[in-house]
């Protein structure tokens, strides 16, 4: 069977599974719709959190990103996992004890202010939409690449699926589909990784192969008879070609610190992640569930850097100095090179006209490849934006590392199809979690808690469904007409989460004296500072030499968070303490006993 047929079968099968789960887990009350009736087992919640958290970007792009960044890729690895320690230790158990449904619920109640609630709602909605646009696009891209349908049709199919289980099942439907999606995505990620590990190092576990000697079918060819570790060989290859050593970085230490900090605190402050911990029955479950979540995430996150190193070694070894056309007795490029060139993720410009691929440091092209319709002397696609300032002839899109992995390693067709299903699972699960935050924000935080408190349970549930339906449509619109700045605004999502929610929640739990005036001014100061810095450098043409101490916009949220803490602390000192019942609320959430059980809806 060919790849297409396999892809139809596997993707179709997983979709049928998701729909089946949606029908089985319909939501009947707002409690079901918002927090799955608080009846989710901690291990299942851990899986759901894993899928919720790992987006199309984690699945498709991260290994590639690390592959080209080397050591610096650690900012993502540590940043996107270390946040769970903060969640498990500082946030999840207390928010679970607090009960209720959303992050704005906590901010609004703890700071006895609808103003604070609305600031939180606006941040939550903004952060979620920023994120979801990229997911829908990811669905479209996977569809178009593997099933050769139009990107827009792909987005449409994705919308229909998410619509079905998010609108019908709410959090309950989403939770169980996410758990299934986690299984699909992790299986799809590990299978090719294990195969590649065996091919390069003869080890079954990629995390071990990552540090082992080169061996196996491809590995021994790369080593060329030497006994050498993969790491050493990779450093050698990188240095020979003028790249930085793989195991050392290029970013400044302060920048790495700030980015890691912003990603960690941002992760812990993302509303769609926090809200997952409202769904377990007990405080105790919230703690352990965060452990399971990180365990499931770590399976992928510790595999990714191994895949990155394998793929980089293999890539350099395969393409460097290989001739494009097949020449008898000479190293020539493999078939997958041409397949991916046709999709536009690879491009080759024969700058020195020797017919061979020179892959060295520097950008081969000015930006993304601009293909003309012509073919060159060797049959390669001609690009019009060659960058004459470097000798590098090869453009490689980072997404190739995961998408082309199975082909690079010559794996069977069903593995390629599995990767497609995994990418879709990652994108759909994250999209659903985000859309639920948007719908809950509208129906619960705005309607029920602020504007129409008299709304009945039935009406609220209807409002939640209508809001979810609208959110799916808006997300789909962004997927079909992606704003050009999607990549840039992701920095925004983390920056905002980290400079707004994170400090507000921490202070709300750990500092009894933190009051409305302090925290509202802290959140505003943090958001305004972070947003201005990001907008200046991403949209108003700020140049790298203007960066403060070399801190990139991705890392500025860390500073914004400190500003938030400082302002909130000082202002709280000089304004009246919170009312006595709020102080009692803080006492109440600090101890586990007396939380509402699984059945309590309100």
């Amino acid at each position, binding site marked *: 069977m060919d790849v297409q047929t396999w892809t139809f079968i596997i993707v179709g099968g997983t979709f049928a599974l998701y729909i089946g789960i949606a029908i089985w887990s319909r939501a009947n009350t707002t409690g079901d719709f918002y927090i799955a009736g608080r009846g989710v087992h901690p291990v299942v919640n851990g899986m759901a959190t894993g899928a919720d958290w790992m987006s199309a970007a984690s699945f498709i792009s991260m290994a590639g990103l690390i592959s080209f960044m080397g050591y610096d890729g650690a900012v993502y690895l540590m940043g996107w996992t270390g946040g769970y320690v903060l969640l498990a230790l500082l946030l999840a158990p207390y928010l679970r004890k607090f009960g209720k449904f959303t992050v704005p619920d906590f901010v609004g109640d703890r700071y006895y202010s609808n103003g604070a609630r609305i600031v939180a709602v606006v941040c939550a909605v903004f952060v979620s939409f920023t994120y979801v646009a990229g997911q829908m696009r990811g669905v479209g891209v996977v569809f178009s690449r593997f099933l050769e349908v139009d990107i827009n049709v792909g987005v449409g199919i994705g919308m229909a699926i998410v619509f079905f289980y998010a609108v019908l099942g709410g959090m309950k439907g989403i939770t169980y589909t996410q758990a299934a999606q986690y299984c699909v995505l992790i299986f799809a990620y590990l299978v090719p990784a294990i195969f590649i590990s065996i091919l390069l190092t003869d080890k079954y576990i990629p995390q071990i192969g990552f540090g082992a000697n080169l061996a196996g079918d491809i590995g021994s060819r790369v080593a060329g008879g030497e006994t050498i570790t993969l*790491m050493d060989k990779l450093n050698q290859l990188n240095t020979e070609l003028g790249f930085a050593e793989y195991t050392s970085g290029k970013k400044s230490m302060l920048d790495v610190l700030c980015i890691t900090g912003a990603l960690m605190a941002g992760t812990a402050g993302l509303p769609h992640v926090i809200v997952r911990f409202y769904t377990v029955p007990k405080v105790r479950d919230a703690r352990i569930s965060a452990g399971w979540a990180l365990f499931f995430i770590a399976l992928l996150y510790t595999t990714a850097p191994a895949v990155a190193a394998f793929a980089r070694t293999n890539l350099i070894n395969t393409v460097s100095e290989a001739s494009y056309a097949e020449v008898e007795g000479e190293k020539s490029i493999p078939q997958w090179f041409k397949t991916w060139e046709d999709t536009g993720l690879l491009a080759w410009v024969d700058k020195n006209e020797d017919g061979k691929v020179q892959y060295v440091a520097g950008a081969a092209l000015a930006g993304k490849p601009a293909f003309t319709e012509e073919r060159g002397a060797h049959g390669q696609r001609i690009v019009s934006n060659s960058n004459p300032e470097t000798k590098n002839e090869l453009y490689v899109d980072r997404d190739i590392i995961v998408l082309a992995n199975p082909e690079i390693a010559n794996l069977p067709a069903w593995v390629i199809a599995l990767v497609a299903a995994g990418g879709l699972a990652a994108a759909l699960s994250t999209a659903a979690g985000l859309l639920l935050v948007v719908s809950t924000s509208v129906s619960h935080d705005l309607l029920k808690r602020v504007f129409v408190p008299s709304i009945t349970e039935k009406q609220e549930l209807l409002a939640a469904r209508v809001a979810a339906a609208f959110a799916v449509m808006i997300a789909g619109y962004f997927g079909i007409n992606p704003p050009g700045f999607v990549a840039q605004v992701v920095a925004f999502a983390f920056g905002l989460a980290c400079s707004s929610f994170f400090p507000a929640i921490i202070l709300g739990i750990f500092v009894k004296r933190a009051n409305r005036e302090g925290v509202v001014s802290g959140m505003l100061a943090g958001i305004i500072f972070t947003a201005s810095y990001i907008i200046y450098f991403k949209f108003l043409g700020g140049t790298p030499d203007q960066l403060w101490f070399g801190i990139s916009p991705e890392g500025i949220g860390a500073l914004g968070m400190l500003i938030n803490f400082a302002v909130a602390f000082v202002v709280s000192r000089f304004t009246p303490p919170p009312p006595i019942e709020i102080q009692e609320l803080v006492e109440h959430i600090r101890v586990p006993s007396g939380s509402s059980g699984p059945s309590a809806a309100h």
Partner: protein
Amino acid sequence: MTEQPNNNDNARRYWARNLRLLVIFLVIWWVVSYGAGIIFVDALDAITIPGTGFPLGFWFAQQGSIYVFVALIFTYSWLMNKLDKEFDVHED
């Protein structure tokens, strides 16, 4: 379920013990990531983990810190369950 009849003192001591645990755990969290993985990465890279090709600092940054994070959460969770029982503030 009703609120446990904690007197304020019991709750305060429970909280103090929890804070002490948190400080210890967050120090470890900080040391393996920001410490070993970033600040002292160059010094640690001089050491290669025996039997592998991993420079130690690089390994902490891309592998080790994540393993420690997972272990930290499970251990904290276990210790807190014990602490909850000791101060009789556990659920059900």
